[in-house]
Each structure stands twice: as structure tokens, then as C-alpha cells.
């Protein structure tokens, strides 16, 4: 850990101004950032502790949705009555992540901003274009077990590691962002994280001085909500593949299929074509196969993670079978 300045602003305005400086980072739960600072993967000169800001509220929105404050802990969100009733996929995704102790500290905004667990990113004696642009990617020809098969680039094959945001992508939630002055904006969760391209150092669309203030969940929709996380051990492991699904049926046909995937890409993966393909169809193994074909048509493995492609296919089929009541 490098020596750093520490500030604890009392207002969002002040926090936003402070985080606009170069080499400045916001500190919320710290479950990821502090670890990375110890390893000198992150070396902020100034840490802006935003925990004093009142952004922990979870409240109904006027249109029947739910607003989750950026500082609401993962534990509080997963335990919230309305989240459990109306957004089950989100509660399940959060509870599938990390450990109870980590969820007690981790926040909504921090979870969205957590960084990849790529082994090469966290080892400063190895090359990594995300940590040290231009140094190369250690993973592409190295140990790529955790890595992406969709939307990768020759510069980076890291994955977004979280679960919460995968459910939020399926729910089509929106990230509320405050900037300096009154430059507030909203970004769909589906667009919040980026693909690596040739600037893998940027995980998401946040600009300097911008702070996540909350996440808006739209009014609940009908249908089964499922979060399936495939992993080696049954807790405290990142997803090999995960599927968040909201699926509704109408007279034996699929009426809604909002799907997002974790463990496959640099962002929670949402492909709008899947919904177009599935809606109106009678569920069957053949239909699920076509959906998987579409999802994975551009998938590329890197040796160690080749298994993710058939695993994603099977996880999708199992999830859709579960949601639609089809026996496979």
C-alpha cells in the first residue's frame, strides 16, 4: 500500500469535486479496493471516503419501481422485503456472491465498480493491459480459467466478476450518476460496463468526478425469476458461468425472456436478440438450443476456458427448462 491522503466529505458535491482529481478514488465498502491497494494494483494518491454521505436508502419509486441507494449494503438489499418479493433474481444473485461478511460491507455502487479477479491483473509483476496499459495481456496465453469468451479483445480477456449486476442487467435497471455541479445522468446497467477493446483500463463509463448515487429498478414484471450460478464450490467462488433470467409464459408460449449472463465477458452480458428469438415460441430443447447458438455464435475460448462455451449452453438450457417447466 502506498501512502495516501484521506478525505471524508460531508456532501455529494464536495465528494464529486474531490474525486475529479487525478489519482483519486472513492471508498465505499472497501472490500475490493483495500485489497488491491495492499497489492499496489490500485495506488490512489487520495482516497475519498463517501461513507458519510446518506446514500444507503432503499425506497419505492413513483412508478412502482425501487431505488437502491449506492451505499445500501448488499446484505440490506438482499434482505429488503420488496427485493425479495418483486426482484427475487436480484436477492438470489447477491446471496450467491462473496460471503456474509463481505456482503455486510459491500455496497451497491462498490459492487458495480469492483474489478476483475484476473490472476494477472492482481499480480503487479505480471503484464496486464488493464492495470498497466501497453504491458500486454498475461492471461491470453496463460491461465485463462476465469476469463471471458464473449466480447474479448486482443488486449484483454478479463471478466466482470460480480453477480449483483448480472441480475440488474436482466432487470434492465438504471444506474444514477452524479457529476460535479448538476451534471447528473442515468445509464442503463446494461451499458454501464464496457467491453475491453483497446482501452481495457476502463471497466465502465464513469468519468472522473462522477459518483454512483443509486440504482433504479423498474416496476416489477410478472414471470419466474431465476439466478443460476455455476461454480466449483458452493460459496465464496466467482461464477464459471451465471444466468439471470426473468421468464414469463402465456398459454404455453414464452411471453418474456429477459436474460443476462455472468462469467462470460468484461460486462454482464445481455443480448437483446435472445428475447426476440424466444418470445412467442413454445419452449423446447430445440428452441433453447437456438437461443444458445445465438448467444454463443461469436464465442471464443482461450484454451483453459474453452469449457465455458458448452457450459453456458447447458446452463442456459437448464435455466430456461426450469423457468418454463419443460423437462429436458
Amino acid at each position: 500500500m502506498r501512502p495516501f491522503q484521506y478525505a471524508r466529505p460531508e456532501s455529494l458535491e464536495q465528494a464529486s469535486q474531490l474525486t475529479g482529481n487525478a489519482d483519486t478514488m472513492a471508498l465505499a465498502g472497501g472490500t475490493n479496493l483495500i485489497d488491491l491497494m495492499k497489492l499496489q494494483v490500485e495506488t490512489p494518491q487520495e482516497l475519498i471516503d463517501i461513507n458519510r454521505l446518506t446514500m444507503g436508502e432503499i425506497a419505492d419509486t413513483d412508478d412502482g419501481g425501487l431505488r437502491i441507494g449506492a451505499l445500501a449494503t448488499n446484505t440490506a438489499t438482499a434482505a429488503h422485503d420488496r427485493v425479495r418479493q418483486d426482484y427475487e433474481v436480484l436477492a438470489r444473485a447477491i446471496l450467491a456472491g462473496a460471503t456474509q461478511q463481505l456482503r455486510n460491507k459491500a455496497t451497491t455502487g462498490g459492487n458495480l465498480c469492483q474489478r476483475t479477479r484476473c490472476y494477472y491483473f492482481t499480480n503487479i509483476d505480471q503484464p496486464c493491459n488493464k492495470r498497466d496499459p501497453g504491458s500486454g495481456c498475461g492471461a491470453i496465453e496463460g491461465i485463462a480459467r476465469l476469463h471471458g469468451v464473449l466480447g474479448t479483445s486482443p488486449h484483454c480477456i478479463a471478466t466482470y466478476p460480480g453477480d449483483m449486476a448480472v441480475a440488474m442487467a436482466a432487470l434492465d435497471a438504471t444506474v444514477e450518476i452524479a457529476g460535479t455541479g448538476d451534471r447528473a445522468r442515468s445509464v442503463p446497467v446494461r451499458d454501464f460496463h464496457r467491453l475491453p477493446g483497446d482501452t481495457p483500463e476502463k471497466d465502465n463509463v464513469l468519468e472522473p468526478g462522477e459518483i454512483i448515487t443509486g440504482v433504479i429498478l423498474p416496476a416489477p414484471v410478472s414471470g419466474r425469476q431465476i439466478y443460476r450460478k455455476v461454480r466449483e464450490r458452493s460459496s465464496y467462488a466467482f461464477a464459471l458461468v451465471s444466468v439471470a433470467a426473468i421468464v414469463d409464459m402465456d398459454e404455453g408460449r414464452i411471453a418474456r425472456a429477459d436474460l443476462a449472463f455472468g462469467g462470460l465477458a468484461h460486462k454482464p452480458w445481455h443480448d437483446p436478440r435472445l428475447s426476440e428469438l424466444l418470445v412467442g415460441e413454445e419452449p423446447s430443447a430445440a428452441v433453447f438450443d437456438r437461443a444458445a447458438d445465438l448467444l454463443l455464435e461469436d464465442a471464443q475460448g482461450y484454451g483453459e476456458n474453452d469449457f465455458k462455451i458448452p457450459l453456458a449452453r447447458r446452463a442456459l438450457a437448464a435455466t430456461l427448462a426450469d423457468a418454463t417447466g419443460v423437462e429436458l
Partner: protein
Amino acid sequence: MEQDKPARDCDLDGMKQGVLGKPLSRSEGLAKVTGTAPYAAEYHVDNCLEGVLVTAPFTRGTITGIDKDACLAMDGVVAVIDDSRMTARPAQGTADEAPVQQPQQVCYWGQPIALVVAETFEQARDAAKHLKITFEADELDEIPLDPQEAETENNQSTRQGDLAQAMNDASHSVDGRITTAGHASAAMEPHAAIAQWDGSTLTVHASLQMLNYNISELADSLDMEEENIRLVSRYVGGGFGSKLGISEETVAASIAAIALERPVRVVMSRQQVFQCIMRRSETTQRLRLATDDKGDLTGFGHQALVSNLPGEEFAEPVLQSSDFLYAGENRVLELDVARIHQMTAGSVRAPGEAVGMPALEVAMDMLAQESGVDPVELRLRNIPESHPVEGTPYSSRKLAECLKQGAEAFGWEAGPRKPRHTRDGEWWIGTGMASAARVHNISEAKARVTLKPDGTAMVETDMTDIGTGTYTILGQIAAEMLGLPREKVLVELGDTQFPRGSGSGGSWGASSVGSAVYVACTGLRKTLGERAGVSEDELRLKDGKLADGTSVTDLLNGGDLSEEGHYEPGDIDDDFVAAGYGAYFAQVRVNRFTGETRVERMTGAFGFGRVLNEKTARSQCQGGMVWSIGAALTEALHFDPRDGHLVNCDLAEYHVPVNRDVPDLEVIMVEERDPAASPIQAKGIGELGMCGGAAAIANAIFDASGARVMDFPMTPDRVLAAMPAS
């Protein structure tokens, strides 16, 4: 005493106190769970400096320069130490001499090369990251990293008869290639040391398993006399082999404390513990088994390739129990070591059997399937009368009892396996079993036992308690022999000021030091008998009194009565094959879509001689079974194929089982006394719980899903790849 013949009559059985074997809680348990038992790094030492190790960012080569000045200019930095006596590797267990030194010669990625010392830990950690080194690194394509392609040396070879012919002639046979991944000990407490130098004596608080060896390893490393060194290791937060020998932090802290004339603490980061302590070697094994038409083994072949750094004597002893477990007169047992430049390979809990037994027991399951013999029956049929090559008799052996009692408790359905017989929604459900075997090790040990005029007794030895219950059981042995309530016996361990114990490792601590305590108590009883005027046989001690009501303290004449017990294994080792045995039964669920496997229930039946404490022994069995689950399903070290560095070097990415992975574990301890094993008729139980258990799970995966996975750990991708199309 030296043991040359079986201890048929053990005095422990005639004692009256009735405390031995009882399920007492650990005597230090409360201190540990309340945070008042200090671990190595937790001692408060005034004026203590903090040291952080710097590690090499390349695989093989030479450090040509270290720019100390820039580092020394940083806030709080006191010294940069690159003394050539610092160690480049940890010492192997029982090495008794310095490990490889001269850290300027780098042999593996992440090797410690220097120590940065500062006033605070944060300053030292930051400065260590900033230390500029120059080096000449060998080209990566010149460095052997792949065991399959590296040069190998033969480490062990046993041949008898003609295995190839036996395979040809067999009614049923199996020829399989099975691999196991490297493992880490992953102890909770990281390696740590605080060294203090008073001008003549070096005192080091460290986290170590074998002070009796560690003191000579440290003395040899520093070129000092043992008399001038005191090692203290009262509480150890898990060892599992990783703290058998001294490691880089202890030597570096010692050198720094002497050079700077101030106390120095060095604590390894989690990543450093993973990257520079000890790995269990990966293995590639070939199993060849041949039977006649009844299922009796006629041929037994077990060959293994393991790896280690050049110059290391240790080779994962994969074939250790294959040597004697099953019959088969035509035999090939061969162990080869590939020389590669990855971190040091050494002992991780149950070296050898931890990976050899799972492979053998998967092959036995394949043979059962092939021959149509029930897996339990196949094992029972092939328990040899005497050692299959040497003809040596076995000492007490409870393998058959464990197989039978375990099968009954588990509700084993005998008969050939028919995979995919039971389905519950997405999950296939199946059962599997395996034998357990682990060689019996025992070592020289000393312990002093003192009766005090206040009615208490004290046991002193430099033996360690690495979380296994040593404090408790040594107190129970002394209490039983001396007729005292357990709470009247104070046990002091982990300090080289006390007589040399055996150290904790190879499951030998309880039987070795337990025997030394027993010998000391026998001496005390002799003196007490003489003073009381009764023969030793008639000396019935209970609650501090003789049978006639005389208080033992009355026999002490107001002073201490002390005896040092010295146990030596003697020649009995040559006369018997001694080992612990057992059987595992597991039920698993395998997800037919994702290949995820979850263990639903598991039974282990074990025979390991006298049970000294029913509770701590059970905990050891359970701990071993948890490790079996990890070895079966999740634990694997991943090394970069290009530079050999360990990539998953923390507890988030090296997957030991979590609570949800571990169901209720049923443990059956089969009543046994083994007079050939030790004077107290006890064997070891620290490792037996994971000597084959992974195979019970692997075999259950096959029974559940039809996937015969040949590579451990059996992660979802591997299970899916092996799963037949439905």
C-alpha cells in the same frame, strides 16, 4: 526406552483415573477462541522493527544488483538485507540442516531475495515494492517447467514377477492414467517470526511444527550454535506440513535482528505463503491391476511421476501405501521425479497417500466395475496375509473391520454399480467407497514430567500443538498414569528450553511424544512405589491418592519429583508393517446440466490404534475428510505454463471447501490397540482421514452420473467432459 518388540502389556490399561480416551475439549481452546492465545506474530515486543520480504519477478537467473539507496531514503526504512545466509527455499521436514541459501541465485518465480526493514509494517511493505533490483534472467524457453517434458530421475522401484504377463493373462484388468493437481497447505496463520537478539542469545517466536529440527536448521543457516538459540512456538494456526522446516521469514528475521540489534518481525503475505512455501507436487499416475476370475489380484502396478526443484531430495511418496495395501504377486511400483523450476515441492498433509490412494482407489473401483465384484468385497478379497514382496507380518490392521463397519453404518448397497440409477430433478445421485491407508511413522522424543508438592504435575517438551489437541492428550496420558484429574496437569509445549520432542508431522506426534510422557510417568511411578513401599503393579493412583488414601504429595517430601522420558523407535520397524487403515463411503449429487458435484453425506471408519481423546481424534478424522472433499472437487494449484509462477495464490482462488461443501461427516473409530506401533499402542490420525477419501467421492460421481473422471480435482468442466451423452 528403545522399542524392539511389541508392547503387549501397556500400563495405561491398568490405571484407575479413567481420563484417557475421554472426549475432553482442548485445554487451550478457550484461549484460542477468545483471542488470548498469542500466535507467532502477536507477541508485544518493544522497539520492534517490521520486515517484508522481496521476491523475484523472474524464474531462473542471478540477482546482479540491488539499489538500496533509493529504498533507504524512503520514510521509516532502516535496512535492506540481502545476506547470502538468507534462505531461498523452506527446509524440508526433518531436514535438520539449512535449506538452500544464497537467494541471489534464483530458481523459481517468486523466490525471496531480500528483506526490507522499516519502523512500521506499512512502510516496509511499500518500500519492498519499490526496491529496484537488476538481474540476469535465463530465457524462459531454456527452463524446464513441464514435468512431462523435463528430465526425470528414478526415486523408487520395486519389481516382482511379470506384471505384463499378468495383465495379459488376467480375467479382468484395468490400465488407467490418473492425474492429481498440486495442493497448498493453506493454513490460516501465515508464516511469521519475531526475532530478538540480546548480544548472546537469539530468541525467535515463530510458527513452526518441529522445533527439535527447526533449531538445528536455523543454527546451521546462521552458522550459530544451537545453545545460543531459543525457538518458541506455543500456538500454531495450522501447519499441514507447511511449517515442518524453517522458512525464509524465520531466517531473514533472525539475520536482521542480529544485524540491527533490534527485534524484527517478518510476516509473509498470503500471496507469499502460497508462492514460496511448499506445494504438494502434481502427479501423473498409471495404475495397472489384474485379477483372476474370482477377483483376486494377480498383478499390481502403480507408477507415478512427480516434480520438484533441482537439488531437492523430497519426492511426493505416492506409492507409500500401495507398497503393502493389496495383494498381487506380479508387481511394479515406480516413482520418478521431474526436475522443474516451480516453487519447492514438499510435505502437505499426508504426503504420498493423499494423492496416491485416491488414484489407486479409483482404479480399484474401475476393476470392481470391470469384474462385477462389489467394491467392498473386492477390497476384502485382496487383503494380503503378509507383505506382498517382503513377507513381513502386519501389525494390528483393522482394514476389514473398517470396510465392514463403515459399509453397515452407511447403508452400502452391495453389488456392481449401475450408473444413473437415481435421479432427483436436475441431479443424479450415487454412492462410492474407497479404502484408507497411511503408513505409521514414529520418532524419537523426550518429555519431562514433574510432580509438584501442590498436587499438580507438569509436562514439558518442545513438542508443538498445531491445532490437533497435543496439549490435551499429553495431559490425559500423564493424568492417567499419575492418577490425577486432567486439570491438575499443566502442559507446556513449543519452547526449545524444554526437552526435545518429536515435532508435529507425519501423524507421529501423539504416539511419539505420548510415549515419551508415558515413559517419564513410568519412571515417576517406580519412584512413588518405592517410596510408598508397594510394587509398581499395586500402585493404584486416583485423584492424587494411593489406594490406601495416602496422598501422592506426601511422598514428595516437599520437593519436586521429576523424570525425563526418552522414547526411541528401536528395531521393531523392521519386524512389522505398521499402518493406519480405514474406509470411506460417500453419497454425492451430480448436476446433469452443469457437472457440479456436491457431497451429500460421508462416512469414514478408521482404525489407528488407541484413541487418546475421542473428541480431538474425531476432529482429526473429520478434518481429513474435509480435505478429501477439497482434493476430490476443488483444490488445485495453477501454474503459468510459461514462467512457472503460481497464479491462484490466495484463499479466494485456491478453493478449499467452504461450510456449504461439507455435509455432516460420520466418523467411526474402530477399537484397536497396536502393540507394535508404540508403547502406548497408538498410531497417528492426523492424516489418515484424507488418504483415499477423494476416491470415494470420485467413485460416487461415476455411480451417480456415469462420468469416470480421471483427473483430480473433479471440477464441473471435467465432470461434463467425461459424462456420457444421455
